[in-house]
């Protein structure tokens, strides 16, 4: 497959900035509206017509890769196809209501939220689910606050959260934000939780162990039942990071494995679009014993209809209102469209795709058996350079140099939406880039809108707005 990304350029710039197309200063005349000293004097912004803006943004869109253009196998990101109809459903004018509306007048909205709470509880094997956290990391933070509230309710003061070294960076940051010390757990030779190290790490200070399963190498933590027992025996809770749930749909549930708290990344597993970095949603499920601590409000069904309520010992709020509503609507629609059979098939195909792709690439995959993702190594070649070269073959490269357990890691998650031909294109990109000359790797990419970008100078001399570019730019 040949690929050339669109590139609009002139002189030493690609598409000009809005501010370079127009910069208009208007004087703010507040006469008769507000006293002069309460208003600003002037405002400078681009004043452009709609046709100019349409062209600006359309050109920029063409200088942006997306999952509708080709494979996007970023490990632990689950870049699957986002069904078009879910956008239309979320845009239903009846679906856009204000959070101050009374329950009685928004039964449709509350019905959807209640339905999604139930879907997610069933899928995760949990007893209660809050939809409020607006992202995966916010879900982690919420879950850890629930754990903290639980321990505090028992007058049990605990100070530590145990996290495997291969976990997502957000786990560490979320635990720290909740005020816990982080105890980092090494992996064993098989790439899984080191049971001896875990035994040594667990103590009466352990508030929770945060685990991703399958882990970030795609490996199922086979000792999960023992792990749960060890953590529970010490009075701790077990937290499930849902980033890799796409591997398990219909085959295993965190609740059945002994997890007490979990978050779901609906922008991963349930196909809501990533939108260039968000919005997502990170609902949190808990077992019965923890339900009273969930954020407020929750939605329940009564004889009179759906109503919002505050759980008895609620931790309070983790979002100003009820989270990322539009994202939740899309997730609901996706789950309802696929049903049991579709969800189970999605996981089967996601795991098959990862295994097939791995069988077709020349790079070594040191750990297995893996599920929906695998960590290949580019060996003595720089993984970041190989990734840049892959761009020239018209695919998005995997996550690089992470997890650190694998040197020069290329963490790859093709998801279920790629067919065999697309996986063969991906494999070709891997193999061709891996075999290319040093020069080809170092000068890559050459087919993308921009060539290799100097990240170091961007950080050394931060220019973060068009105002900072000055006239000399």
């Amino acid at each position, binding site marked *: 497959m040949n690929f050339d990304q669109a590139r609009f350029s002139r002189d030493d710039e690609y598409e000009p900035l809005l501010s370079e197309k127009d910069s208009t200063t208007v004087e703010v005349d507040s006469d008769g509206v507000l006293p002069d000293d309460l208003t600003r004097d002037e405002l400078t912004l681009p004043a452009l017509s709609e046709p100019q803006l349409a062209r600006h943004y359309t050109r*920029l869109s063409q200088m942006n890769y997306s999952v509708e253009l080709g494979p996007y196998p970023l490990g632990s990101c689950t870049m699957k196809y986002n069904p078009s109809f879910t956008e239309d459903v979320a845009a239903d004018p009846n679906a856009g209501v204000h959070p101050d509306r*009374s329950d009685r007048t928004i039964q449709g909205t509350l019905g959807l939220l209640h339905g999604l709470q139930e879907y997610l509880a069933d899928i995760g094997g949990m007893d209660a689910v809050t939809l409020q956290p607006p992202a995966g990391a916010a879900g982690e933070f919420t879950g850890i606050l629930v754990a903290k509230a639980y321990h505090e309710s028992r007058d049990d003061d605990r100070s530590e959260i145990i996290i495997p070294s291969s976990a997502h960076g957000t786990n560490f940051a979320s635990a720290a934000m909740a005020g816990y010390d982080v105890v980092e757990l090494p992996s064993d030779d098989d790439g899984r939780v080191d049971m001896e190290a875990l035994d040594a790490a667990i103590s009466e200070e352990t508030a929770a162990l945060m685990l991703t399963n399958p882990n970030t190498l795609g490996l199922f933590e086979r000792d999960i039942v023992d792990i749960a027992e060890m953590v529970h025996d010490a009075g701790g809770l077990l937290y499930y990071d849902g980033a890799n749930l796409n591997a398990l749909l219909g085959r295993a549930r965190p609740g059945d494995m002994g997890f007490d708290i979990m978050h779901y990344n609906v922008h991963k597993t349930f196909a809501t679009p990533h939108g260039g970095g968000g919005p997502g949603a990170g609902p949190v499920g808990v077992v019965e014993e923890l339900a009273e601590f969930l954020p407020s409000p929750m939605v329940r069904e009564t004889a009179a209809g759906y109503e919002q309520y505050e759980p008895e010992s609620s931790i309070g709020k983790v979002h100003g209102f009820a989270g990322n509503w539009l994202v939740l609507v899309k997730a609901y629609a996706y789950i309802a469209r696929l049903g049991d059979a579709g969800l189970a098939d999605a996981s089967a195909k996601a795991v098959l795709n990862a295994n097939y792709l791995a069988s077709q690439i020349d790079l070594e995959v040191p750990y297995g058996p893996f599920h929906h993702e695998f960590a290949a190594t580019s060996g003595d070649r720089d993984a970041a350079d190989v990734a840049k070269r892959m761009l020239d073959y018209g695919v998005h490269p995997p996550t690089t140099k992470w997890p650190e357990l694998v040197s020069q890691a290329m963490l790859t998650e093709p998801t279920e939406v790629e067919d065999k031909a697309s996986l063969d294109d991906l494999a070709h990109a891997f193999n061709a880039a891996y075999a290319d000359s040093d020069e080809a790797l170092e000068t890559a990419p050459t087919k993308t809108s921009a060539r290799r970008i100097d990240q170091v100078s961007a950080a050394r001399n931060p220019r973060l707005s068009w105002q900072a570019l000055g006239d000399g730019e």
Partner: protein
Amino acid sequence: MTAGNGRRVGSPYAPHTDADEEAMLDAVGVDSAEDLFDIPGEVRFDGEFGVDSADEQELRNAMADLFSRNEELTEFLGRGHHAHYVPALVDDLSRRSEFLTSYTQYQPEIAQGFLQVLFEYQSMLVELTGLPVANCSMYDAATALAEAALLANRLRRGASGHRVLVPEHLHEGRLGVLENYLDGAEMEIGEYPMDDGAVDVETLADLVDDETVMVYAETPTVRGVIEERLADISDLAHDNDALFCLGSDLVALALLEEPASVGADVVVGEAGALGLGTAYGMGLGIFATREEYLRQVPGRLVGVSEDSADMRAFTLTLQTREQHIRKERATSNICTNQAWVALRTAMHMAWLGPDRLVDLATQAVTDARDLAARLDELSGVKAPLYDRHHFREFVVRTDQPAPAITNDLAGRGFAVHALDDHHLQVCITDANADAADGLVAAFEEVI
């Protein structure tokens, strides 16, 4: 199993043909995809979720039916979640799949388009706030406020205390989020009183001390009051080596005093009022600050660099602040953010341009004033309650019970919020202004 829309078995979005699946299984060396699952029998799930698959058309109909259970009321609601008319261009272009279905820009060479939009968004915030650093987004105003408090606390590690002072009139969602974010840092929240709907600056002066790391004020307040003594509040904070954090929103910033000119160190607030419309509280948090706090900023930043062809290019930058590099020492745990909402907001601002943006903000003052005056003419009604300038919304005192009034108004097709037994809050924007006559008439009937 055959692929295609309407298929009842399997995911309609997994495109494998039988022949392909066969060939792939052969290549892997297993008989079935089930053989690839390395899950111990004791934790295998053999049950069902009980969700039937649905075809697209029937599901769309079912969801339209579900949403039709929401009563069609014209909303005069605000309190931190505001809607303005969103132009078609925003829906149309933001839904281009190149934007909508892309990931965070970890490979900037292939993501210049989105990076440039985010850079332009940051730049518009810089213009509106007068502060030189703005990030690409926080989840909402509440989490942005909480992150500002954490930033203030990191900057003031040497302070003798860890207190944040917030106004008596603060949205309960913002206060709740702030409490949760500050708990882990062992910070505390102090509340200062309002006087006739605005900050009681004299009492605040008694409360600010060297244990204070941040003073937070809003304009407009959650009750729609335009704060008149921002510079005094800022001075109080700075005299005590505390940061001054100002909460506002993008439309208000186009008209009101520039935050930098009144001494704001951090500006937070809600931006979803432009670009998003009414979305059950979903929003976009703005976060802008001074250059000297750059390395303490939470969230993503887009910067300018050059590529190997010596062309100007955009990239995420200063990522060593972030969780994927710094882990538990990161400035925040935020990863997934509101990038696509920021894109929509930037498009909406660009569509308005400076003239119409200022007009929209001006209208928010005059429409609120006019509507309050009309309600004030009704017997048993005082509007606005506070003798202040207002932005978009205002409090109404009613002799009759407020909850009963909102109930009766709902019966006439209008949603208005009851603050307590004798106070309502009414919000007017270009999205509902054409229904103002109807609201006034309905009001007259129900009181």
